[in-house]
């Protein structure tokens, strides 16, 4: 397709006339209707001492955040969360990119392979976690059987959090791979041919062509994986429940226990709000990087 020579400014006007806001409106309405209230509610609660037991409810300003600062269990959970997020997201992106590039090549049975790659992602997390718990079983689990080892995967402080990471990596690498596969399709083949003509090695082609062009999508993937991993709940809840000795307790697990087991809705909301701000902070860094890339 040839390039359109010049675009008269009247067309630009026409574009403005079509009121892009109208296109965004449905999404805005849905998101607004369903999320604004819950989020404001949680923010509001985080400034309260709200105990369901005994029906205590009073405004205490930022006192909950001060309590958080001195709460050793919070710092422990934050450490676990950061470790889980950084290790699992890094592994997922590397592995996902590798799989995407592998499957991007033309070969027989490509569609079939794509479907296979999606399987881990397609299994409900709760079910997948149950499956892995079964495979991690220290007594008759298939992992120990195949390795000929006696590893206490889920019951030892050294292994438990890593065991949860393995599951998360297995489960969500397809998400990364799928998006990157779709992204690879949008890279013009001519660029690769040009690189070949110039005699660039595959590694150089990857660094100079593939990576820069995938960058925006990679950042989107990173953002969503980080947000998800930082809030990890189901996986750990099923595998270890936070144990042994809180060594796998992440912020969401801790928030869950404070909210729904001990019914401290105020302090629990404070934990949730803290997760929100921390994730927001990380995302901001990513978005900056994304912006720098697009302009």
């Amino acid at each position, binding site marked *: 397709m040839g390039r359109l020579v010049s675009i008269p400014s009247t067309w630009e006007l026409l574009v403005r006339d079509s009121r892009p806001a109208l296109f965004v409106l449905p999404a805005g309405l849905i998101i607004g209707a369903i999320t604004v209230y*819950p989020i404001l509610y949680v923010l509001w609660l985080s400034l309260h001492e709200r105990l369901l037991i005994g029906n205590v409810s009073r405004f205490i300003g930022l006192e909950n955040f001060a309590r958080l600062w001195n709460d050793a269990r919070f710092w422990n959970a934050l450490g676990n969360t950061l470790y889980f997020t950084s290790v699992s997201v890094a592994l997922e992106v590397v592995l996902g990119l590798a799989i995407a590039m592998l499957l991007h090549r033309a070969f027989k049975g490509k569609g079939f392979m794509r479907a296979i790659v999606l399987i881990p992602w397609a*299994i409900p997390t709760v079910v997948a976690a149950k499956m892995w718990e079964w495979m991690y079983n220290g007594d008759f689990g298939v992992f120990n059987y195949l390795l000929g080892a006696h590893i206490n995967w889920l019951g030892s402080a050294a292994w438990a959090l890593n065991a949860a990471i393995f599951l998360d990596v297995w489960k969500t690498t397809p998400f990364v791979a799928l998006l990157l596969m779709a992204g690879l399709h*949008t890279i013009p083949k001519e660029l690769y041919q040009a690189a070949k003509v110039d005699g660039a090695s595959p590694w150089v082609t990857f660094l100079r062509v593939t990576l820069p062009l995938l960058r925006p999508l990679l950042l989107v993937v990173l953002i969503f994986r980080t947000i998800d991993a930082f809030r990890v709940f189901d996986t750990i809840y099923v595998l270890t429940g936070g144990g042994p000795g809180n060594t796998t307790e992440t912020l969401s697990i801790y928030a869950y226990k404070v909210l729904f087991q001990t019914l401290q809705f105020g302090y629990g909301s404070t934990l949730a709000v803290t997760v929100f701000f921390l994730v927001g902070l990380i995302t901001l860094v990513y978005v900056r990087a994304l912006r720098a890339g697009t302009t």
Partner: protein
Amino acid sequence: MKRAGFYLLLALVALYCLGPFLWQLITSLKPAAELTHLPPLLPAPPTGTHYVAIFEGYPFLRIIANSAIVAAASTLLALAVGSLAAFALAQLRMRGTMVLLTFALGISMFPPIATVSPLYLLIRAAHMRDTLWALIMTYTTFALPLAIWVLTSFFRGIPREIYLAARVDGCTALQAFYKVILPLAAPGLAATGILVFIFAWNEFLYALTFTATTASRTIPVGIALFPGLHEVPWGEIAAASVVVTIPVVVLAFAFQRRIVEGLTAGAVKG
């Protein structure tokens, strides 16, 4: 030689992805007494009793249907609404795009565990408790940020000249959107659709809270209902998870096929 290495890699990837699923399949075919024994690795002989058990005296089909309806409806809604928004953000050069995108993202940053309580109040107020609508609306909303982000990134890859040309040819903005731009973004739509579908298919926390009976229960909650007070029927859980995985695989398979060949986005760009 190189080819063999490539297929070896493929086999490794397949094993990695399939391994746990295959183990689940094997587990589902083992007689109850063999479940907690290793070796033998394989059941001898395999049994179908666990499969019979999940369909007998248990409305498992209804639960699968619920999940399918919820996931399909959420996907369609999220794609329709999300692609409109993404189109505006990417192609119409809307002002404040970054602000809107960041806001959409912001809502997915709360741990779901914190928003489930207030959301439940909304659902109850709307008399949507124990209906499929409660889940469809919730899933659409929480899938929208991802959908908008991914689609925006795909729409950005489509040269604006194409949109402008369509306008020159007399299309309205909306027509240009669905007649020209949307087909070009097919791979992005398919990828996003699959992600949303699977998210809705798998979600547990909201489903547990908003549903009460088989009228609206979805698969993850249905499976959570298998265990008795103390007993855990591993065989049945394994069988159920195999059964619920298959439709998604079939779907992914069908979906994938359509998007691969003749990808316009790549061709157009050159």
